[in-house]
């Protein structure tokens, strides 16, 4: 509970910073970590394996910039599932992943990763430019100095992932 509490505080800090235009003082990855956590709340995995699993594997692929920011999320319960943070060494490990954050470092193998992710039915998130157009599901973008995101509904549908309309409302752009 302490962890959860801390996350909420973090979340709150982040949000309050954004709104006051102090975004730069917090690192982008702190914000993105919070986003990741929050995305999960608006996502339904329709494939039975992911849907029924009591665990929610949040995988980070590549050199990740989050450092220990994600640690408090581990073991957190979201949608009655327990979050497990997994740092993948190999993209082939991603079959168990519910959420797959693709680090900027992996942009060269993006097509391979995305086709694998497609098989894994994972929610792909990345801050690689053009990620959504390339077939990723959620891609971070920076509008002015605010971090927003884009959504590719086609990819989501292909991965049998349902995104809440509330989330879509907030998306900077939705690819259909």
């Amino acid at each position, binding site marked *: 509970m302490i962890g959860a509490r801390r996350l909420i505080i973090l979340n709150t800090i982040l949000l309050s910073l954004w709104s006051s235009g102090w975004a730069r003082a917090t690192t982008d990855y702190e914000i993105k970590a919070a986003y990741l956590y929050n995305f999960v709340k608006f996502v339904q995995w329709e494939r039975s394996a992911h849907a029924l699993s009591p665990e929610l594997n949040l995988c980070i692929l590549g050199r990740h910039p989050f450092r220990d920011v994600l640690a408090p999320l581990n073991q957190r319960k979201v949608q009655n599932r327990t979050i497990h943070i997994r740092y993948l060494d190999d993209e082939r490990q991603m079959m168990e992943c519910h959420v797959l954050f693709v680090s900027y470092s992996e942009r060269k193998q993006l097509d391979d990763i995305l086709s694998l992710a497609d098989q894994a039915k994972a929610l792909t998130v990345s801050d690689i430019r053009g990620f959504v157009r390339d077939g990723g599901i959620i891609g971070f973008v920076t509008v002015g100095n605010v971090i927003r995101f884009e959504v590719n509904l086609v990819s989501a549908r292909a991965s049998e992932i349902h995104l809440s309309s509330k989330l879509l409302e*907030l998306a900077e752009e939705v690819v259909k």
Partner: protein
Amino acid sequence: MKVSFWSKLPIRSKLLLLTLFSSVMGPLVIAASVILYEASTYRLENLQEVTVIANIVADRSTAALVFGDNNQLQENLASLQLRKTIALACMYDETDLVRASLILDESLNCPAAPVVHEGYYAEEYLHITQQVILDGEPIGKLLIQASLVELRRHLGNFALTALLVCLVTIVAILYVANVLQKRITDPLINLTETASRVAGEKNYELRAELESQDEIGKLVETFNDMLATIEEQNNHILKSNEELEKTVATRTSELLTANKELEAFSYSVSHDLRQPLRAIDGFSEAILEDYGDQLDEMGLSYLQRVRSASQRMGALIQSMLVLSRVTRHVIALKEVNLSESAEAVRQSLTDENPERQVQWSIEPGMVTKGDANLLNIALSNLLQNAWKYSSKEAQAEIRFGVDRSAVPPVFYVSDNGAGFDMKYADKLFVAFSRLHSPDEFEGSGIGLATVNRVINRHHGRIWVESTLNEGTTFYFTLDAEHNAAG
């Protein structure tokens, strides 16, 4: 008894008021209870509705809250504008920082520290503050204040509608009641008018029109029956009256005839009875004068007795004539000076019997209303009586006076003569009764009966007080004027 406003109202108005009251009360009570029910229901529904809306907005705003999209939050709140009653909506994050607000009522502001509440009504507003929950975690608060203007307007409209319905009902009821009431009141008014006419015209042939078979109908029937009875009795009375008048007329004519006959009888008595008496007396005298020398003492005495008997009978007839005349005489009222009348009688009595020594005492100025002729006859009789019965006194006294302290005044004629035993007093005023023998005092026995009749005809009273050998006092009153006035 105090006459209240209600009791003065005509029945028509009473019925109308009753109908109006009872018929308006219904819609009014229904309207009032519906308004009350509506008010409470509306509050409940309003609470539920706003709560639902708040839930929806809160739910919709979860993502915007967690992703810090204030524009989206603002947009979400803006959608509340559609709901006219919403006056204020504030979206707080978990730190109670206002992230978006919708202020539709300028006087309102987002409070600094919102307290979560399911909803309450205060200061003309419905207050709802609820948590925004995402995946079981509170992530912010949504405060909504909804004004009750809508409720007011709603209830106002409802009340207006109810009032209109009431008005329409009243008009409709008035119309119908007026029509129906006529059926009730018209027979009553008809009955009242008939009763008034009957009372005014005394026309018992009138009948109230029978218009219904209800209680009023029965009343009308009973009234008509009553009229029929009255009419019958009235006719009976009229008939009896007629018969009575006929009887009175017959009796009156009979009485007139009787009076005429009495008059004729009196006339006949005065002529036909006196004529033979004159003959008896006259021829007796002739015998005495022409053949007196041929008669002995006894014969002369007998003839003398014949003469005195016939003369007594003449006097008797004369008295009867006077009595009859007193009875028949038509009274003519005027001022009569009794003192002067008495004085005249005194004079004539003194002239006739100059040898008598009598002490007279006549009170002067005794004036009264009455018939001069009759009072003269009465007074003459009384004074002659006194004169006669005091004739054997050496010191005779005759007094005539009046006690004016009494009402009416009491006149008296007294003498100090023979007097009589009071036990015969009741016989005194009856014709032909005498208390003294002719040997003692001459008299017809009719004089006091005549006096009594004169006093009676003046509606007065006569009575006597007497002591044997000490004297007699006659008292009488006269009240002719009382009768004249009556």
